[in-house]
């Protein structure tokens, strides 16, 4: 019986990478078709296939790791680097939108009345719902850390409680932000103020939803005893991502919501 003389995981051939690329193509071209030809068919197809492929690819990774034991410490190290690099790239992604915000708000043009917020724009009061949202995300950072400690201390019950609470806080944030969007006196079409506000906070909200989804999968796996006190990288990756989302919010809140009002 042949054994590998190294601690890496030579993955079996899989259809998901190339299908994932195809799904990305359908999604991006679908987006273009939606913008120009008012049809959402291709976009829907793209997003649906993307979802199915993500579920199956990640399901396979859980099979390879939790059930087949392929994730040695070496493999885990690679995954850690990967997650860190990914989050770093996301940080640069948001940096661009913050750049756009500061470019427009530090030197407001005559068209805006030479002021920020521009003439006619009534910004949201940063001490109302946005402050509550800040508290919610900070609290969720505490609960996810509580969950982590519970996992390392083999406390299954508390881990489930803490992770559930984290997810509920995330959903609460999303619900509040959705009502804020609905009730806001300005829209994305309201000049550069609307553009910078909704694109930055909108992408953040998307990341909250992604983070909540990731944490939910972790909750499912936690309940099924996939994690051990010493090996639970999926959870750690989700927790890192969640803290990142929290930090982005803190920047959004202090710059766009507070300084920008």
């Amino acid at each position, binding site marked *: 019986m042949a054994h590998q003389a190294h601690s890496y995981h030579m993955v079996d051939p899989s259809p998901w990478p190339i299908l994932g690329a195809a799904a990305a193509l359908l999604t991006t071209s679908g987006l273009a078709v939606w913008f120009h030809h008012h049809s959402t068919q291709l976009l829907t197809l793209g997003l649906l296939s993307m979802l199915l492929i993500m579920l199956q690819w990640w399901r396979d990774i859980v099979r390879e790791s939790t059930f087949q034991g392929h994730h040695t410490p070496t493999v885990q190290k690679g995954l850690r680097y990967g997650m860190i690099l990914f989050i770093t790239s996301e940080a640069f992604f948001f940096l661009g939108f913050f750049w756009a915000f500061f470019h427009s708000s530090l*030197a407001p*043009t*005559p*068209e*805006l*009345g*030479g*002021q920020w917020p*521009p*003439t*006619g724009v009534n910004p949201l009061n940063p001490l109302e719902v946005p402050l509550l949202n800040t508290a919610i995300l900070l609290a969720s950072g505490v609960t996810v850390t509580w969950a982590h400690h519970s996992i390392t201390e083999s406390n299954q019950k508390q881990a489930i409680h803490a992770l559930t609470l984290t997810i509920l806080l995330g959903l609460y944030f999303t619900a509040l932000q959705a009502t804020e969007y609905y009730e806001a006196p300005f829209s994305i079409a309201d000049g550069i103020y609307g553009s910078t506000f909704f694109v930055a906070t909108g992408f953040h909200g998307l990341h909250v939803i992604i983070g909540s989804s990731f944490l939910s999968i972790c909750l499912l796996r936690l309940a099924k005893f996939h994690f051990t006190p010493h090996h639970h990288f999926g959870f750690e990756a989700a927790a890192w991502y969640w803290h990142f989302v929290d930090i982005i919010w803190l920047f959004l809140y202090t710059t766009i919501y507070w300084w920008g009002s």
Partner: protein
Amino acid sequence: RGGDIRVTMGTAPFDSRFPNQNQTRNCWQNYLDFHRCEKAMAAKGADAAPCQWYYRVYKSLCPSEWVTTWDEYREEGTFPGKI
């Protein structure tokens, strides 16, 4: 040597509040300051002659299209600046 016609020409002097190449803010600020000055003098019932400085500066610096557009906005009540 032909006739030596001396013509004095001038433009807005250096304003250290706007030291860089992009002088948009200089034009905008003086346009605002002229109209604010006019409004304030009229409110006090005083002579608006001191306001002429701002007038001459913005006339010098601002592209005429901008001035026309801003005058129209003021007319319509849609001028975004605070006067």
